[in-house]
């Protein structure tokens, strides 16, 4: 029997790849404390070469939509296709699949709110600040920080104006709020 993971370090990496398998961005959670997770049997992906090789191979396995989950090369991987991108979240093989998925869904939904449902390569690259901060609000060095997508999205401050003034509630905030409510209502109807 595999010893269950008793620590809060549940995620090993977060990756976004495009339709050609190229890295859009990737964050590997390799800090020294979370090595407990690595011991669970996953090989460590510490060098860029290993990471790229793994990403490429993983992409080969998952490029067709409609899988959502795979156990690949001693990592449990949940993934999600969105137009021309694939979002991956990696965890140790013994992790609870639903827990890992909850984190990915939270991140993805939060990002959808923030990018107004335009989760595709163009808008991800245009809004990298949002994409990165959103990830930071979801996962902190391997620990899942939040799974409530609305809360995550709302924690992201909007971009500052050109001057040095205090943050204001501008059009963007209101639009965000509107979108949020809209999606909430839509969810409620289902």
């Amino acid at each position, binding site marked *: 029997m595999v010893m269950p993971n008793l620590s809060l370090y549940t995620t090993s990496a977060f990756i976004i790849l495009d339709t050609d398998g190229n890295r859009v*961005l990737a964050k590997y959670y390799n800090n020294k404390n979370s090595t407990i997770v690595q011991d669970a049997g996953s090989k460590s992906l510490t060098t860029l070469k290993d990471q790229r090789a793994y990403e490429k191979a993983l992409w080969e396995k998952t490029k067709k939509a409609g899988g959502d989950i795979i156990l690949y090369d001693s990592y449990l991987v949940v993934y999600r296709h969105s137009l021309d991108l694939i979002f991956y979240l990696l965890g140790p093989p013994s992790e609870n699949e639903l827990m890992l998925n909850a984190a990915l869904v939270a991140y993805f939904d939060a990002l959808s709110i923030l990018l107004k449902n335009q989760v595709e390569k163009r808008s991800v690259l245009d809004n990298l600040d949002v994409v990165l901060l959103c990830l930071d609000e979801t996962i*902190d060095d391997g620990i899942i920080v939040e799974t409530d997508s609305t809360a995550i999205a709302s924690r992201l*401050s909007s971009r500052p104006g050109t001057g040095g003034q205090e943050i204001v509630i501008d059009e963007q905030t209101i639009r965000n709020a509107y979108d949020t409510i809209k999606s909430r209502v839509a969810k409620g109807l289902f």
Partner: protein
Amino acid sequence: MSFKKDEESGLNAFYNNKSTIIQEARIFNESNVSPRKCRALLTRVVYLLYLGETFSTQEATNLFFGTTKLFQNKDGALRQMVYFTVKELATMAEDVIMVTSSIMKDMQPNSEVVYRPNAIRALCRIIDPSMVQGVERFFKSAIVDKNPSISSGALVSSYHLYPQAKEVIKRWVNEVQESVNVKPIASYFNSPQPSSSGYLGFSSPQPAGPQTIPSTSNITQYHALGLLFQIRQQDRMAITKMIQQLGGAKSGSGSSLKNPMALCMLVRYAVKVMEEDPNMHKQMYDLLEGWLRHKSDMVNYEAARAICEMRGVTPQQLTRSVSVLQIFLSSPKPVLKFAAIRTLSQLALTHPASVATCNVDMENLITDSNRSIATYAITTLLKTGNEASVDRLMKQITGFMSEISDEFKVIVVEAIRSLTLKFPAKQALMLNFLSGVLRDEGGYDFKRAVVEAIFDMIKYISDSKETALAHLCEFIEDCEFTKLSVRILHLIGLEGPKTLQPTKYIRYIYNRVVLENAIVRAAAVSSLAKFGVNAVDGTIRNSIRVLLSSRCLDDVDDEVRDRAAMYLKVMQQDVLAQKYVRDDSVFSLATLESQLVSYVNDSAASEVPFDVSGVPKVSRAQAQQESARPNAIDTIVAATPAKAAPAAPVQKTAEETKSAYAQQLAAVPDFAEYGPILNSSNKPAALTETETEYVVSCVKHIFKEHVVFQFNVSNTLPDTILERVAVAMQPNDAGLTEDFILPVESLSHETSPQIVYVSFTRDSPEGYVLGSFGCTLKFISKEVDPTSGVPEEEGYEDEYQLEEVELGAGSDYIVPNYAAFTAEWDKMKETGTSLTETFALSSMGSLKAACDSLIEILNMEALGGTENPQSTSVHTLNLSGLVTGGGGKVLARCRMTFSSGQGVTLELSVRAEQDPAARLVLAAIGG
């Protein structure tokens, strides 16, 4: 998609250019910066890292301190990005500790800024463990903050810091406890739907506050529980109490834990308690059972999985979990299906009957669009299936075989292979299927899997042999893979002559000689020769001779010609046939490999030819058993009982262990001169009890002129460091001179185990020194200050008495070696030494016990099943071994009688190629 190319090169080049960004980062130093510009630039800095770029320490430090200049700007949106950048750069830059005070400002308890959680989460990256005490007040208040993001941030930060600052963080246990018990968030935000109030709440009475929507996930409980467990980990009573308090009543509904992830952790803690304390088993099991009815799928699944993996779980206990998983199987969500089928497939290994209730649901998953789910479904079904369902299943599989990828086909074939062995009665059906897919298109791996499955059938199911061989013969008629053709030809050579009509195979093989490439032709020649030697019918031998001499002797390839010439000769002389064709022993490949490696590496050795007689032999059956074993051996760590994980330890063979030791020793420069290792002990001998303060085991390595003792030393005390750890050895007999000791400089609980080597010179390398050694562990013990983690300056010298180390005949000088006993025995009578002596083994209670202990002491191979006495009064045990270091072969015939009054009387006859070897064996029993 041409525009994408532009976008790729354009955008990425823009974002990718490290030097441009470092240049631009100078604007951080300007007095009046634009927050928007800076935020964009910081994004690009971090993004570089996320693309795989690296910064040198200097670059990172410059960027880091540039970034911290931006603390002067009050813009909240920029500040959030600054914290993010600080976090990412902190591990690479130097002197990061200097920004502590800037960050602390944002952590003030009254600060109602959106970035307060970010500040808290960044702080743990830059702070020195010794300073944690200084921020204690902030952390304590943040942990119990009403805002879940702040509380979670503080808890996650503390969790990251915990390994470095255990003692301080332990003092926060009350605050952490409070945040576990915090009431569900919805109750103090008065609105029943708090989600929208945040955004629309800018008219609320806190205008300066952040416009964030409070989380409804209660995930703070998860973080608090995780930290609480870390703090109390060592205290099983406290953990048990915690589980009882938080576990709630039946179905977990009464629990104050609302977060499903927190409950999942509780499930895992419960499992841990259950395993460690059998008395709690029932109570914890009841809790797990209750969680099966929780409203969250995640918790149901975690509990169900825990029960399925429970040690010694009964079918009754499994029923509920299996039905929970069964419901998941028909869920539309792939993740849920995957989770369920993965767990069931694991369970099917041990409890196929319990899983069988899900058979119908699993059959629906065979065609699932997620290939992993389909694969698990098939392999599980093949384990749970009964003989009746096999037909239906096979039909289903045949239906989609052509639609799936090669890799998936391999899994299916593997599963069918094991199914065939389980239901031999179905062999005709299976063989039909396998031969069918063998004709399909497919790559090498797939074809190999099929061929190996058929090989297994030939080996284990004799009814299928003739048909299976016929299928293989047909396959090689049109096989594009040389490797497979060669293996099949070899197998036909082994099995064909035993069949009723060997001639029908000869035609197929001869076709290969005519049509194939040189490698296959050579294999075909060897195969034909086996028919020639082994066939009962004299006419076959003649035909083979004709075939070999007519065509193969004129082959264009010299290997084929050589083989043909050799086998023609062999077929004429029965002695040669015995040696080259009918011999059923092979070299132990692992040993052969390691000896060849050391031969090649040793430049001096190449002047003499490699001595193959030093390599022990094993029988073919043994070799096959070894290669059938899954290859999952990676590295060998110095053995420690503490690390003996419950996760199915792979049984290493003695040979592999030895090769691994050889690598370990080769890494120590002091042993470079010693030459190759002649022998290493099979397994470490424990010199202490497993639960003492210091755990020591010993492995002995014999070199040509030296003996090296390897002591694996573990320090099990967490708060003590041992320095200059050495082992003092007192030889009881002469014959060995101590050379040196390689001590371990520093040994803590974390770095255990480490190795102390003690080297001795063998005074007379041609003799075999036996004897025992008194051993004492010597070291300087230093206590570690629990708060600072620094060991005290002055330690005290201490000793620890170990058990004696024995240098014995069997375990250290002799290795088992397979031989044809009668032939060798007679041969050695002429050429070698013979010695005979009689012993009274009065303490032996039976012949079997005597056999076992003789085999163990001498470490020799028992031949012809003589290790199991047929009679209770008289028995002869035949043993064969190889004395290391060129000592040559040695055989022992142990004739024993047993009577209940006198125990076992043993007449031991030893024959060896060399005299010292024979004396060694006698001494081992006599001494």
